[in-house]
């Protein structure tokens, strides 16, 4: 690393010289290498795990220019140009993108080669020189979205965080590659559906595409008819040689699937390439340096199956007391001219008998607690099954803003009730519609224990435009991430190693094994209005407003005044007319003042006989109007009670305040 640092010359001439050299160098003797590997592991639970790994490493010059991009990619050979240009443009130092369908079941399958969150997950370290990281992140996500046909463009500030503890660089991180913690961006899209439209652009990045080599096995219809399938693109700078004096850029494209033969084949566990990829291998990719298929036959020692054809060699590996037997098919050495392609075929002697495999030493489950649409909680169970060793882990939780997390409710305790004090708590509160909540805990899990991490949240009530079309489906909370370093390798499918490709992990021994685990994604329901009834809601609200508003408006804007009921008493016909909304008799003054008011104020009757003459139209409607007074009296007099009241009581008349003068004239009349 130091050597690389020195290369940034301080004098002008050396820089020029350097640049010249670089250009010359890249043009002339840039070396890149491509290798393809496939690992097949039959699980005890009956499933078969196939992990494809395609590694391209390119000896790029990382000298870069002052303040400029750290590397420039020209003259693409094996490295995919479409991706390379994007990476150069946004000055990416390290990038990890996974697109996953289904969930890896840790307690049944152990640890995967590459752990991935269900849905889409992207985390990127930008080069130190990038000034506006958010801008670069925005650009990169949009570019990748186009490149992989995924909805990565939906990644915005509400789903992006910068964890400080969990996602350390996986490649070189010193010297010129040293970077700032603020240059990391992490985001997940737990709802992303992954399928063949993502696979097609992904396999186009391979040098041989799917014409030959291991990638020829990719048959979308079969790959996605599985329990789990995950696509990944990982970019990082790695050591070019053992002394690590120089660095090269490594691109890993991985594809993992877990097929479930018994579910398809009447309970039989038999597996073959032809059946599960619907074709066999016809040869290696001519551009690949290594092209190998590994089959884990460790299980074969206890419950036996026959493997056809005979492997090129059978290798024993041993790390930390855990031995593993691998059958290796070297595609360069395989006699394709004799056979009709390579069809790896496992035939089990017995029908499958399921055993509950013992779960790994460390695993995690997460679930939603409580019910109802107001509050809720999330609980994670962290299992440390090691009989005597404590385990230090980093637990990261990314909670979207609409589930408002309460930090004071955070509880970390073992199932026996002993409180586990976090060594470090890093909490970044979210804000509505801006940023999510981020919680990172460093915990020491006691040996042979289950630790509960729990907290509660409040469900936000979204604005009505913020609901997706399927609002009642619920909202996803992305996986929590558990990061740690294990001392033992026995639960790993392939122990992680610094070198490139599967080979390094499978055959190198180490004492420290970094591990990352993803938990379940969660589906929570937020309080959702009934969108199917907007019409009803509008009707109801309008009615309520009409009733309340109309009455209150009348009450507040009218003037109340006493009038003599005897004088103001209308005839029964007028009343009848009034009842049916035809009371149009108004005083002439009224008419002059505000003719529009008459229907609103039907109670105001005027016995001025001149009215009829003014308004001849009324006569036909109400012919008995002239003699209504005596007639009315005689009609109602039989009811003494009411009559009496009429005689004695004052009645309230309502007027609109704008007509004060009319009121005065009324008084004069009386």
């Amino acid at each position, binding site marked *: 690393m130091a050597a690389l640092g020195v290369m940034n010359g301080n004098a002008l001439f050396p820089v020029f010289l350097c640049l010249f050299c670089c250009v010359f160098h890249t043009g002339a003797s840039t070396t890149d290498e491509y290798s393809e590997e496939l690992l097949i592991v039959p699980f005890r639970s*009956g499933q078969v795990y196939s992990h494809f790994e395609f590694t391209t490493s390119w000896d790029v010059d990382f000298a870069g220019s002052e303040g400029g991009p750290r590397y420039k990619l020209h003259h693409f050979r094996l490295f995919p140009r479409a991706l390379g240009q994007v990476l150069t443009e946004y000055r990416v130092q390290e990038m990890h993108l996974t697109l996953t*369908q*289904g*969930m890896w*079941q840790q*307690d*049944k399958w152990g640890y995967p080669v590459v752990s991935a969150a*269900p*849905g889409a997950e992207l985390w990127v370290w930008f080069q130190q020189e990038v000034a506006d990281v958010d801008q670069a992140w925005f650009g990169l996500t949009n570019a990748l979205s186009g490149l992989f046909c995924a909805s990565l463009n939906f990644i915005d500030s509400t789903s992006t965080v910068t964890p400080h503890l969990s996602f350390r660089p996986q490649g070189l991180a010193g010297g010129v590659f040293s970077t700032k913690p603020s240059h990391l961006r992490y985001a997940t899209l737990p709802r992303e559906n992954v399928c063949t439209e993502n696979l097609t652009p992904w396999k186009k990045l391979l040098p041989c595409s799917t014409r030959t080599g291991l990638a020829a096995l990719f048959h979308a219809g079969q790959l996605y*008819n*599985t*329990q*789990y399938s995950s696509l990944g693109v990982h970019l990082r700078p790695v050591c070019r040689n053992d002394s690590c004096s120089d660095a090269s850029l490594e691109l890993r494209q991985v594809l993992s699937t877990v097929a*479930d033969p*018994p*579910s398809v084949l*009447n*309970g039989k566990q038999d597996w073959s390439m032809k059946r599960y990829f619907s074709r066999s291998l016809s040869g290696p990719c001519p551009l690949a340096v290594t092209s190998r298929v590994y089959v884990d036959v460790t299980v074969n020692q206890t419950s036996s199956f026959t493997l056809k054809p005979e492997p090129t060699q059978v290798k024993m590996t041993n790390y930390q007391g855990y031995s593993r037997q691998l059958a290796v098919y070297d595609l360069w050495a395989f006699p394709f001219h004799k056979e009709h392609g390579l069809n790896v075929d496992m035939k089990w002697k017995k029908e*499958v008998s*399921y055993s*509950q495999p013992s779960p790994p030493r460390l695993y995690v*489950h997460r*679930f*939603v*607690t*409580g*019910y*109802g649409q107001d509050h809720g*909680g999330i*609980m994670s169970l962290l299992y440390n099954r090691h009989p005597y060793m404590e385990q230090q882990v980093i637990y990261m939780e990314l909670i979207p803003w609409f589930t408002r997390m309460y930090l004071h409710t955070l509880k970390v305790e073992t199932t026996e009730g002993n409180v586990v004090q976090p060594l470090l708590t890093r909490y970044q509160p979210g804000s509505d519609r801006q940023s999510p909540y981020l919680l990172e805990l460093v915990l020491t899990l006691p040996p042979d224990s289950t630790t509960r991490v729990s907290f509660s949240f409040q469900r936000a009530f979204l604005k009505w435009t913020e609901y997706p079309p*399927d*609002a*009642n*489906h*619920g909202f*996803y909370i992305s996986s929590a991430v558990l990061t740690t370093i294990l001392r033992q390798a026995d639960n790993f499918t392939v122990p992680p190693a610094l070198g490139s490709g599967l080979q390094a992990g499978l055959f190198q021994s180490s004492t420290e094994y970094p591990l990352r685990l993803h938990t*379940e*994604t*969660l*589906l929570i*329901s937020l309080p959702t209005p*009934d969108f*199917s009834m907007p019409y009803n809601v509008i009707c109801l609200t309008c009615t309520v407003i009409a*009733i309340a508003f*109309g*009455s*209150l408006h*009348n*009450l507040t804007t*009218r003037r109340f005044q*006493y009038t003599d009921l005897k004088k103001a008493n209308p005839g029964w016909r007028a009343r009848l007319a009034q009842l049916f909304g035809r009371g149009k008799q108004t005083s002439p003054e009224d008419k002059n003042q505000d003719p529009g008011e008459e229907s609103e104020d039907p*109670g105001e009757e005027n016995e001025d006989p001149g009215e009829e003459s003014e308004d001849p139209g009324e006569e036909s409607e109400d012919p008995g109007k002239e003699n209504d007074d005596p007639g009315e009296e005689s009609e109602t007099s039989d009811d003494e*009670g009411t009559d009496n*009241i009429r005689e*004695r*009581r*004052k*009645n*309230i008349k*309502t007027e609109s305040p704008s007509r004060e003068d009319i009121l005065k004239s009324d008084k004069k009349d009386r």
Partner: protein
Amino acid sequence: MGLLSDPKSRERFSRIAAKYNSPLCFLAYVVGVVWFLALAYKPFNHKTYFSENALLPGLVEGKFRTENTASRISQAMKEIKNVTRDGPMPVAWVVNQLRDLGLDTYTQEYIQTIPVPSASKSTELGKDMFVTLNGTNVYGILRAPRAASTEAIVLSAPYKHYLTMDHNNHAFGLMVALAAHFRKSSYWSKDIIFLLVDYDEIGMEAWLQEYHYTKSPLLKSSPLHGRSGSIQAAINLELNSDQVSHFNIKLEGLNGLLPNLDLVNLVVQLCNRERIPVKLHKQHDPFPPEGWPAFRQNLKTMSLMMLHQATGMPNGLHGLFLRYHIEAVTLEGVLEPGRATTGFYRMGRVLEGVFRSLNNLLERFHQSFFFYLLPASDRYVSIGMYMPPFGLILLVTALKAIALWISIGTPDPDPWEGGENVEIERIQSGKTEDGQGDNTVSRRGVTKIRTQNYSNGDGWSLVPVVACCQVAGFISSVSPMVMTGLGHLFSTKPYQAIITGATGMFFASLFMPMCITRYRLACTVNTLRLWKCAALVLQAIILAATAAANFSLGMLMAVTMVPVCAMVRPGKLRFLQAVLMLLVSPFGLLIVYTGLYLLLTETEYHGVFPSAIHLCTVVYYNILSGVIHGYVLGTWQYSLLALAVFPNWLFFWCIVFKKRDVPVVETKEEKKKS
């Protein structure tokens, strides 16, 4: 509209309400009841329909072919049961059956403490005093290949029914067969949980509580080591035999909750497709669907549903899911002798169809109705249809209360309510006119004078009465547990203690009016009017609130309590009133409605005396289960009766027995004169 702004029309309204009070009340009640009963008739209700388009039940093509597995497993389970002689659930065997299919299989152990002292007298006091049940639930999760375990559907079955001791081995057989069939398909987008529950409801509750991590102090259980995502729907399966003649669909859940109507429709539709008859409460759909016999049949089905719902007790394991907003129904396969039967093959196809339709769901059930009554399996009465008649019945209470409120201030003690107040008003207004000779006296002035001249009811006198009633209610709500504690000391049987506790306070408080009479309270007619007015308002509120939560309970209470309580008045015909009041007391209602239920369900009549004894035993068990379920499952029906309905009733009871004193009105006026 003008009620607020137009005092004239307001006055007119109150005048009408007062003058024609009794006929109006009668009309409202009769129309309400007739309207409600008419809803059971076909032309007045609607045909059910699918509101959720995503279910697509018609597109499912049944491929279930593992019926032989079902018979094999159920036979094997029966043999095990015979060997173990109804011992505990053969957990290991059940686990193996599920694990052999490749399901992620887990067990859950639990201990339920029932706060009832154990019948066998334990020597130690304290914790061991209580009855404890322990059991083990077994469940297997079929992981969906298409999703990351975010959603799940449950197929559950009780191991056996502890009340009837019926075995459910056929249901388990079918469950395993379905699991074997489902596992072969890769189209599942939701995990399917196969759950065999030990000890009926308690086991179910234990599992659900642990799944959602909602702990209750009485129920301790081991943590679940395997979970799936949020449960979208559940089907509970009970089969009496391997050949069934029809499916009885059970809907009513905890506290009267009902599953979404779409789920019910789905089940009915798929049963119809496989030509398995469907019944609700063991009542078949009438044919022909119209006419008098059909109406009677529909009404019977609807009444049974209401009677079940009103109890608030789940009539199957599905009822416990509903609290967690998981839509669930129970399918009970019944073998009726002399009918055409179907075997596992068609039952399996029905369930396959149900699960594949549920698998199609994109969202939680939210479209169709959650509040409804079913007069037949394909007809429904929605909340919009049954609420107006209920409102009419409640209107009786409201009208009576208004009339009483208006009549407060009437000097004459005899006209108890309404009618004549108009005249008094007139006299009063006349007085003011005379006295002041001014035409513009404010209306407020009129009322003021009125209040001065005639004593309004003494509002403060309400406080001790209401307080007494509420205290009585509170005591009766806690007394079952207190009595069991005390009963332990006197070595009475716990169940007797519960019954004594539940009913003792009721009978004791019948004597409350005597205590109240002794206490000198201002008891003018107006005070009593105010009392009754308050009691009526309280009743209306209680009934309306109850109906919103558990419509059937509210409706059944309203139908009986409203007319009696509206008629109650102090003094006259005390004996008759007392009898009627006793009939509509919480205890009386329980007897009345249990009697009605037995009348509707029991086919044979054994004579008066045996029937009465039968009725008494059923009432006894109802009280018992009401109290115990309140503690174990959290039903609130007993608490509601004890804390709200009973005090309100007691209030009315006091009014009946209250003696009227000499009206204070006169004395006040006399004082003024002097």
